[in-house]
Each structure stands twice: as structure tokens, then as C-alpha cells.
């Protein structure tokens, strides 16, 4: 088909026109700024070509926060449109595009990058390793995710956004009913980002299995490491299904096959089936690492070992099995046989059991603990009751017969926001407050943190609690407007006001990052929270080789054990050895760029051009095959100097941060 140049840019909408100008100015400003301050070299050598898991983690987090702004603006636009009946702020088409991009961006480009970013930063440190198993693959994962995210994001200014919902059900998402190129963006951008995620999954399975330090058996791993490990296994099991489904979607849309069409022997609901075979495990992919972070944060601030460690591990393993067995509960109303619906009702309810075990374990961890109410801990405390509301309404939805009433209403929308915001966003914020000092060497301000916390939690409840009742009254999701006679107006207005408070809470976080970067105290020692796991045993911010000598572990909560038993050894000069680390490489970012270009051409169904661009991908693979770079060694003098600086200053003149 090729690109229709006269329709290249989306025109005719003042909101989009303003964003086009905004994006152009931001790009010019960023390029000019980097050039003016002569930061290109720094950017290239320190960040764009890095293979250091800590820097890659930080880039993931930065991307997640930026995408949060984009997805959040989408959410606010929807709330603005539905605040009053018969509103004309967004038209039906624009509303369709906005809820589609909101869903995709929040799940795949906010929740996933923020969690994978924290995993990247924390896991190698927690298991006492110097990097992940495949550092270069890790960089490739990031750049493919970034490339997919950027490709998806430009859709609304170039060519048009996808508009068939984040689930993109057929037949609506097919060529027959969505003839524009918007849904090609969905198919291609998610394919690229998904490949990156799959590589991350493989990388972390191998890292956790092969890279643990001496003495750290599987049952002595911190809980965040455990949940990230299980998450990685679920990624490896489920992302290939999405890859196949998206490939078939691309074939249907671009090459005229009939996998999911109504005519020609296609099966439209097979898309829903494949989508949720991936999509439900995806829910656990985002929620499990979050559970792990909470476990570590709660045991740190309750100042106790995690209660029921073994039952916690058994629960996450059970969740990983059950998560593959519940997908049909997303389309109970498709018209399955009673046997199918009953089976998936029961498996869905069964998954509440291990989840319930975990909730009780957190409560018992806090019982009789000397709890410190830091901002990180507040997020963890707010998580429990809010997440339980999401979980219990989930069990309501699990009953297939009752689901016919709830299906496609705002009740469902409220339910999954009550699962995903307290279950993923709260823990991510907790994790950011908790690990920020390890990443950057200063803490986020606690006072602004409390503002961030209270505004966000109150705003969240005011936004989504009314949607339960609206849904029970029959308000359907994805409807761009409603009449005044429905009586939805007042609750919709309350919900819209809540979303503004929610946004103010997020703005407080962004302000906190700015304020703390400028004014926060840099003298915080290596262990400001009096924490329990190995990442706190090394310098803050972490030196590029992580550990001068790899720690040896004898117990769960290894660092806490070392502190309490006076086993923290000073570094002996004759024991220091040269450290072998991987070199930076240009290949991952190059691959991100060529995948992005080739994908962009494929979106426009310009297949010949896309194939030519894809030669660049094979060129990158070939370069990698003949790349014999053996890495470099950190010399003894450098290690001794670095270690001397932080160990001498460690905990000298440091205020107690958790009183």
C-alpha cells in the first residue's frame, strides 16, 4: 500500500495539533540542549551504549515515568469527557483512541518497564552478582522495548492511533472494520516490545539460577528475587503466545489472511482466546514482582524476617501454575459450554487462595513488629486494604453466571484498577522510595513523599470507588458519553474530581524527584533504612562493579544477619582481585533503531521498504556474531581507591533516617 503522504500527519484536531507542536519543540529543545552542554559523548558512552544492569534499570524507570505521564493524560482526558452527560470534549473516535492507548501504555509501557527497571537494578545486587547473565542481551531488551514504545506513541500524530481497545478484539480490529493503519501500530509496536520482554524473561531465569553468590541457596533468596524469578518463567511461558497472536494479526491485516476474520474460515474469538492466554499470565507478570518488593519493604520496616517464607514461595509457584489456567474468565459471555465456564470459574476462585496466603503473611510479618512509617512503608500499608477490595471484587467476577451482569461495565473497570493500582503502582512507588538512595545516592524527600502518598491514595479511591456503583447501575465501559436521564452524572463527576487529585499526587512525585535531586542530603551512608538484603551491603550509589569481593551468604536476610553478628569484614587489600566486566556496545541501540524503522514501514504496509530495512536487522545480528570483544578488567588500584572512599566515610556523620 505504501505511505499516503497527504494523510501522513493526523490533522484536524486542535488537541493533536498542539501535541504535534509540543513534541516538535521538545525534540528540538532536547537536541539543542544536549549539543549546547556538549553532553553527546557522555550520553553515548555512559548511557546509550551501556550494558550495566543498574543503568539499564534506571533507563527503564525513566521511560516508565515518562510513559506514565502520557498514559495519565489519556486517563484524564477520558475522565474529563465523561464528567458530565453529553459532553463534547472528545468525539467518539477520539475517545476510542484514547482508551486504547491508555490501556496499552499503562500495562506494557508503564507497569512493565517500571517493574523490569527495578528488577534490573535490584536483582543482581540482591543475589550478590556483578551483572545479569547476558548483559548485552539485557541492553537489547531495553532498546527493543523503548523502540516499541516510541513506535506506539507516535501513532497519534502520524497515521492515527489504534482504536479497538487494548484487547483489540476481532472482528473489530480486523481490516474490515478498522481499515486505517492505527491497528497496525498495535500489532507491530507490541511485537517489537514483546520480543524485548521475552529476552528479559530468559535473562532473569538464567541470572537467578546461575549467578547467585556463594551460599545463597534458592530458599535463602530475598522474596523480590523469588517473585522476579517466577515472573520471568511466566514471561517465557506466555509471551510467545502473544508473539504468535500478533503475527497472525499482522498477517490478517497486512497480507489478507483469514485467521481471525468472520468470513473465509476465520475464527474471530480465537484472537480473544490467544490474547488472554497471554493476557492473564501478564497480570501476574506485573503483580508478582510488585508482591516481592512489598515483602522486602514490609520486613525491612516492620524490622522482622518475613513471616511464612516457605508458604510465600509455595504460593508464588502455585500462582505461576494457576495463572496459565484462568484465561477464559475474560470472555465467559462468549457462549462457552457450561463445563468450560464452570472449570474456569473454579480455577479463578482457586487463585484467590495463594493470594490470600500472601496477604496474611504480610499482616503477620507486621504483627508485633516495630513498624517505621516511612513513605515506602505507607505505600505497603495502603496496598493491603485497597488490594483486598480489588481481589474480592475479582472473586465476584469469577462467578461465570454473575459475570453476565458485570461484564463490560464500569464495575469491571473499577475492579481491575483496584487490582493494578494498589497491586502494581503502589508497590512501584514504594520500591522507588525504598531503592532511590541505592540508585542515586540521595533519598527522596519524606515530607513531599507524604503529600505524594495521601493525594494519590485518596485520589485513587475517589476516582474508582464510584465506578463500582456506576457499573452495577449499568454504566458500560468504553462509552464516550451518556444521557442525563441515566443518572450517572453525579458519580461520574465525583470520579472525575478524584482523577484530578490522583494527578496531583503523581505531580507531587515528579516534584519530589526534582526537589530531591537538587537539595537532598548526599551523606546518607550505604544503608539508610537499616535494611536486610545484600544490595545495602555495598556503596551508595553502587560502584560500577557492584561488589569488590563477592559476599558469602549463610542465612536468609543475609545483610541483616551480618550486621547483627558483627560479620561485616573490612576489605583485605591482598584479597582484592581484578574484576572482569563486559564492554559497552553500540549493537543494542542500533538494533532498536532498525527495528523501529522497519516496524514503522510495516505499519504503513510498505512491505518492500520494510524488508529492505530489515536487512539492517540481519546486519546487526551478523556484527554480533563476529564480535569477539572479551570485555575489560577493573584494576586493583581503582577498586582499592573506590572502596577506600565509601568505606572510610561509611556511616560517619550520617543521620538516622528511620527514626
Amino acid at each position, binding site marked *: 500500500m505504501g505511505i499516503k503522504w497527504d494523510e501522513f500527519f493526523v490533522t484536524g484536531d486542535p488537541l493533536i495539533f498542539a501535541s504535534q507542536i509540543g513534541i516538535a519543540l521538545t525534540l528540538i529543545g532536547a537536541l539543542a540542549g544536549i549539543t549546547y552542554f556538549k553532553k553527546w559523548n557522555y550520553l553515548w558512552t555512559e548511557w546509550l551504549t551501556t550494558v550495566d544492569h543498574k543503568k539499564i534499570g534506571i533507563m527503564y524507570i525513566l521511560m516508565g515515568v515518562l510513559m506514565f505521564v502520557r498514559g495519565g493524560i489519556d486517563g484524564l482526558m477520558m475522565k474529563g469527557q465523561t464528567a458530565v452527560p453529553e459532553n463534547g470534549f472528545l468525539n467518539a473516535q477520539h475517545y476510542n483512541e484514547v482508551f486504547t492507548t491508555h490501556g496499552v501504555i499503562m500495562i506494557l509501557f508503564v507497569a512493565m518497564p517500571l517493574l523490569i527497571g527495578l528488577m534490573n537494578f535490584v536483582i543482581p545486587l540482591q543475589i550478590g552478582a556483578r551483572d545479569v547473565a547476558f548483559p548485552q542481551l539485557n541492553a537489547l531488551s531495553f532498546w527493543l522495548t523503548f523502540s516499541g514504545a516510541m513506535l506506539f506513541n507516535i501513532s497519534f500524530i502520524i497515521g492515527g492511533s489504534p482504536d479497538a481497545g487494548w484487547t483489540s478484539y476481532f472482528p473489530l480490529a480486523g481490516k474490515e472494520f478498522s481499515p486505517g493503519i492505527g491497528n497496525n501500530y498495535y500489532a507491530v509496536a507490541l511485537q517489537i516490545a514483546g520480543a524485548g520482554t521475552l529476552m528479559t524473561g530468559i535473562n532473569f531465569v538464567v541470572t537467578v539460577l546461575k549467578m547467585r553468590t556463594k551460599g545463597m541457596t534458592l530458599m535463602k533468596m530475598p522474596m523480590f528475587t523469588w517473585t522476579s524469578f517466577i515472573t520471568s518463567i511466566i514471561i517465557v511461558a506466555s509471551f510467545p503466545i502473544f508473539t504468535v497472536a500478533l503475527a497472525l494479526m499482522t498477517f490478517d491485516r497486512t497480507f489478507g489472511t483469514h485467521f481471525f476474520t468472520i468470513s473465509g474460515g476465520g475464527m474471530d*474469538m480465537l484472537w480473544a482466546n490467544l490474547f488472554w492466554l497471554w493476557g492473564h499470565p501478564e497480570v501476574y507478570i506485573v503483580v508478582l514482582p510488585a508482591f516481592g518488593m512489598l515483602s522486602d519493604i514490609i520486613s525491612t520496616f516492620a524490622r522482622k524476617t518475613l513471616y511464612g517464607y516457605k508458604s510465600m514461595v509455595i504460593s508464588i509457584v502455585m500462582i505461576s501454575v494457576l495463572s496459565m489456567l484462568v484465561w477464559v474468565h475474560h470472555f465467559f459471555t462468549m457462549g*462457552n459450554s457450561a463445563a468450560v465456564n464452570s472449570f474456569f470459574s473454579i480455577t479463578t476462585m482457586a487463585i484467590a487462595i495463594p493470594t490470600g496466603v500472601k496477604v496474611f503473611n504480610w499482616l503477620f510479618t507486621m504483627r508485633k513488629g516495630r513498624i517505621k512509617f516511612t513513605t515506602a512503608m505507607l505505600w505497603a500499608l495502603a496496598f493491603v486494604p485497597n488490594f483486598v477490595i480489588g481481589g474480592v471484587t475479582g472473586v465476584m467476577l469469577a462467578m461465570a453466571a454473575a459475570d453476565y451482569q458485570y461484564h463490560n461495565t464500569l464495575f469491571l473497570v473499577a475492579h481491575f484498577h483496584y487490582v493494578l493500582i494498589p497491586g502494581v503502582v503502589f508497590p512501584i512507588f514504594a520500591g522507588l522510595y525504598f531503592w532511590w538512595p541505592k540508585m542515586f545516592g540521595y533519598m527522596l524527600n519524606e515530607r513531599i513523599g507524604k503529600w505524594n502518598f495521601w493525594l494519590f491514595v485518596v485520589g485513587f479511591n475517589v476516582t474508582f470507588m464510584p465506578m463500582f456503583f456506576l457499573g452495577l447501575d449499568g454504566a458500560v465501559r468504553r462509552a464516550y458519553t451518556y444521557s442525563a436521564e441515566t443518572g450517572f452524572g453525579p458519580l461520574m463527576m465525583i470520579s472525575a474530581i478524584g482523577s484530578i487529585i490522583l494527578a496531583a499526587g503523581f505531580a507531587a512525585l515528579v516534584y519530589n524527584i526534582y526537589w530531591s535531586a537538587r537539595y537532598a542530603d548526599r551523606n546518607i551512608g550505604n544503608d539508610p533504612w537499616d535494611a536486610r538484603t545484600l544490595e545495602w551491603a555495598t556503596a551508595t550509589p553502587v560502584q560500577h562493579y557492584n561488589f569488590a569481593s563477592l559476599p558469602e551468604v549463610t542465612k536468609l536476610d543475609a545483610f541483616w544477619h551480618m550486621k547483627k553478628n558483627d560479620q561485616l569484614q573490612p576489605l583485605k587489600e591482598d584479597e582484592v582481585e581484578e574484576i572482569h566486566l563486559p564492554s559497552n556496545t553500540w549493537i543494542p541501540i542500533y538494533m532498536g533503531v532498525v527495528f523501529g524503522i522497519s516496524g514503522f514501514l510495516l505499519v504503513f504496509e510498505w512491505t518492500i521498504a520494510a524488508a529492505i530495512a530489515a536487512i539492517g536487522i540481519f546486519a546487526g545480528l551478523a556484527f554480533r556474531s563476529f564480535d569477539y570483544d572479551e570485555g575489560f578488567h577493573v584494576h586493583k588500584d581503582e577498586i582499592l581507591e573506590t572502596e577506600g572512599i565509601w568505606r572510610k566515610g561509611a556511616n560517619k556523620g550520617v543521620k538516622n533516617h528511620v527514626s
Partner: protein
Amino acid sequence: MDQHSKGFPISHVIGFFMSLVLTFGAAWVALQTSLSMKAVMWIIGTLAVVQAGIQLYMFMHMNEGEDKVANNINIIYSAFIAVVIVAGSIWVMTSGHSH
């Protein structure tokens, strides 16, 4: 540099060509023969299982692991996932009145 050159990867090449033959064979059976739908399904299903086996042995190092327990866990889990996805999808998509 020695660990980079283990000789010509002959088993990979054989596996690759056998996979191509089996894939094009399946396409030929489906598109160019006039067998009944049921026969076509059984033939291409069998070819798919054979190809999965070839890929597991030729590419996935299934018989190279030292650790028997880990190998068994991997195989059981993979079989579980494969059964859930394939058998589960067929069950869900063919029962009821959705198709």
C-alpha cells in the same frame, strides 16, 4: 578464541532443513491435495509434533543437560504449557455455541 570454533554445526543445518521440509510439506498437504479436512488436520498435526521433536533435539539441547532433576522439571513444565495452550484452546473454541 578457541571456544568460538567447535567445527561445522552440522546438526543445526540438518535440523533447519528438516524443519523447512516439514513446514512446506504441511503447506503442500493443506493447499495442494484433495484429502478430507479430517485427514489434513491429522497429517499436519503429526508433522507439527515431529517438527517440535526435531527442534527440541537439534536446537534446544534437550539431551545435553547434566542435571537430570532440572531437565525433568523443564520437560514436565513445557508439556504442561503445551497441553494447556493447544488442548485448552481446542476445548474452549469448539465447545458451546461460539464457533
